[in-house]
Structure formats: structure tokens, C-alpha cells
């Protein structure tokens, strides 16, 4: 774990092991050091924004490095089950690239237990870890200009549900009618970091 300066009002914690991100996030949420304004988890990092009038980089770094992420249990969240119709336009291509049948791709995707690691790209777009390594594929060579809301997709080590219609380069393997994002709901995002998720057809 390294603490990197991010300008005058933030620090970026860089992890070797991505599973440590949620642990430190949970620890800092439960017991926030003085002056912390916001925590933003990502793939291998945790951004800590702070008020420079209340703390400084070295003090924050000292606090963070004192914490053990090993013993920290992320907060318990209910498991969310996402119903999927596995009829995505890229299912056959994914199967060919993975050397599997389409049925086997679906089975492996359904068998996974996923954890929302972080959000980005668009409001409510959650990167879910736990994808079967046989399904780890690079993004499509050319992104689509429009991916429908509710598309269930995979790319790299992640799977995701597109929260709204948007451009996108991930492989579309299915779709869900579950609204994962609704600005009228609190919280608007169903798949907040730390949430466990299963997909079922």
C-alpha cells in the first residue's frame, strides 16, 4: 500500500491487491480521520479528499498506513439478485473467443458471486468483480455508439449492468429489467461499492 499525493487536497492510496480497496474504504468510513471529505474507491486505488484546513498529507498518510486492511470486514449488505435474459448480441462472439458454448458462458456468468468494487464511467455504472477468468476478454475493438439501459455486459475482469443508454465498448451478453439506477431512489444506485450480486436467468 502506497500513499501518493494528489494535489493539495487529496491523496491516492495505491494497492497491490485490489481486494484491499474495499477493506480500507470500510475502515475509513467507520472511523474517518479528521478532515476527510470524501472517499472514492476505484480498481486498485482509493482516493481520499481532505480539507487542507483540518489535516495534511503526512498526517493522513500516517493514519492510513497504521490501519490493517487484513482484519477489516466490509459492512454487510444484502445480496442483490439481478434477473437476466441472456440474449445479448455479443454472446456468440464471447463464446467463440472463450472457446466455450453459449450455454457454458451463461452458466459461468450465473455461477459467479460478484462484489461491486467501484463506480465510474457514468452515474451508477458499477464495476463488479468476481467474473470467471475464462470470460476475461478485452473490450470490443470498436465501441458501440449506443448500448441500451439494462444491458448486462463483460470486459476485462469485470461484469456490469449499463444503468442508462450510453456509448460503450463492453461485450453485451444479456439484459435485465431491474432498474439499477433511479435518481428518485435513495440511494439512487442499487449496486453501491461493497454490495454482493448474483445474476440469474
Amino acid at each position, binding site marked *: 500500500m502506497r500513499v*501518493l*499525493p*494528489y*494535489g*493539495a*487536497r*487529496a491523496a*491516492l492510496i*495505491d494497492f497491490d491487491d485490489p481486494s484491499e480497496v474495499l477493506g480500507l474504504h470500510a475502515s475509513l468510513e467507520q472511523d474517518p480521520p479528521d478532515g476527510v*471529505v*470524501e*472517499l*472514492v*474507491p*476505484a*480498481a*486498485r*486505488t482509493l*482516493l481520499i*479528499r481532505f480539507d487542507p484546513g483540518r489535516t495534511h498529507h503526512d498526517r493522513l498518510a500516517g493514519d492510513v498506513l497504521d490501519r490493517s486492511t487484513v482484519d477489516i470486514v466490509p459492512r454487510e449488505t444484502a445480496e442483490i439478485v439481478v434477473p437476466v435474459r441472456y440474449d445479448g448480441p455479443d454472446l456468440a462472439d464471447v463464446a467463440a473467443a472463450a472457446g466455450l458454448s453459449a450455454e457454458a458462458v451463461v452458466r459461468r456468468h450465473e455461477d459467479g458471486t460478484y462484489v461491486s468494487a*467501484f*463506480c*465510474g*464511467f*457514468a*452515474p*451508477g*455504472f*458499477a*464495476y463488479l468483480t468476481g467474473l470467471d477468468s475464462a470470460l476475461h476478454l478485452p473490450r470490443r475493438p470498436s465501441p458501440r455508439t449506443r448500448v441500451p439501459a439494462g444491458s448486462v455486459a463483460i470486459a476485462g475482469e469485470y461484469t456490469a449492468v449499463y444503468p*442508462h443508454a450510453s456509448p460503450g465498448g463492453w461485450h453485451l451478453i444479456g439484459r435485465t429489467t431491474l432498474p439499477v439506477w433511479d*435518481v428518485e431512489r435513495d*440511494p*439512487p*444506485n442499487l449496486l*453501491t*461499492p461493497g454490495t454482493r450480486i448474483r445474476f440469474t436467468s
Partner: protein
Amino acid sequence: MTAKIEVVRPGIFATVQDLGRPGLAAIGVGRSGAADRGSLRLANRLVGNPEQNAALEVVLGGLVLRFSAPATVAVTGAPCTITAGGRAVGPHAPIHLRAGEDLVLGTASQGLRCYVAVRGGVDVPAVLGARATDTLGKLGPPALSAGMTLPVGTRVLDHPGVDLAPRASLPEEPVLRVSPGPRLAWFTSDALSTLVSSGFVATSDVDRVGVRLSGPALSRAREGELPPEAAVPGALQIPPSGQPILFLADHPVTGGYPVIAVVDETDLDLAAQIRPGQRVRFRPA
């Protein structure tokens, strides 16, 4: 009856902005809000609004508004000619309009973004606690268009004691203070000194997401991709071309290019006034 503002002409691009949606980056929602926050706050103070009331952010002026009821407004940010009911009026001061009168902003002579506050605030529905339009995250009201009406709200403070706020004019060549970013080690040892000793020019690619700059390439010492990591306003992201992108209000919540340095929050208002083609310099904070 709620007072209404009719957008007669929106200019090139105008949006409703307030102080945005801080604290939601973990669910993929950026802060957004006024690109030049100081000018928004000042405009609100001049009309006796709470600082977080929603106002209008107008790229390069050219806006025409018609008021259905008497109103008090103020214009801040990029300097432009202003008329109210045909009378020439000045910026950084309250302007009183009678019912049916037009407020007309000329083209900004310097800078990029004008702000127009109305006493009571622009009362469009809030989304996730703010009325700001996030152009990248697609949250908040649509950009202004001709014929649109905007309701005027009722959230006010006492009338302010000041009726003119002197403001320094915008510099010809802004100098923005930078502190090291998290991925400085991804660049050659001279990259930071190149950043703070060279001149850069804003390209035509300038919007609420950021300013794409052109100048000497900042060379990478290591290749490879960075998994997505959180960004902040002011981050200077360096894509493979070596030409910096300065993140502004609607920047992506996470980005994949290494950030070499970060412009201080206090200089971001200045950064939001950079025009395409304008020269920019950086110096160590």
C-alpha cells in the same frame, strides 16, 4: 403566481448551474456545478441569494432573457456588454428589471463564461440535491433553448449591503498553480519542469469536462495502461500524445490516463475562463 424567465436566445451554450453534487463520486456522480464557482457565488450574493441558489452559466454571452415579473439580477464572470430594458448597465452589481423587459448580454470580450443570477434563484427541479446540469453524467435540466421558460424561486436572504463588487480583470495569460499528482513517477524526470516552464495553448476542445492543451509533449517514463482511478477537478491527465487535459467541473469521475499534476482549487475559477486559443502557464504552488 411564480415569476418566469423566458429564454429568448440562449447564445452558444447556456446551462443552469449551482454548486453541484459534492460527495457522490463513489456512486459515479461528479460534483459538476458552476465551472467558475467564485463568479456564481458573487452573482448570488449581489442579488441577496444564498450562495447555492441556481443561476445561469452562459458561454461567451449572447443570451437574451425576458422577465414576466419585476426581477433583480446580476451578471458576473466573463465581461460583456449588458442592457436591461434597453438601458446600458454594468456587471458585478444588482440590475432591476420591470415586467416584460429583456436582459441582453453582448458577446464576452474576454474570458469564456458569464453568470446570471436572479433574486430567488432558478427554480428547476433538483436532481440528487442539485439543479446543476452535468453535461457528462447527463443529470439535471437540459441546456437552455429558445422558447424555454425557467421558474424563479423564492429562496432569498436579506438584500445585500453592497451594490457593486469590484473584481480584478481576467489576465491575458493565466498562470495556474500546480501541485504534484499521483502518477508523477510515470513521467520522465524533466516532465514536471517542462510543465511549469513552458507555455501551453488551449485548443478548440474546451468544454465543461475540460480544456485540452497543446504544448511540448510531457514524456512518459513507463508505458502501459492504468486501471481506472478517481480524478478531481484540476487534474492534469496526460494521454499517450503527451498533451495535457485539464479537468474542469464535469470531468469523468474515474479516468485511465496518468495524472502528472493538479491545478489548485483556488485557481480553477481562472481555468474555467480559458478560451480556445488562449495561452496558459503553470507554476509550482
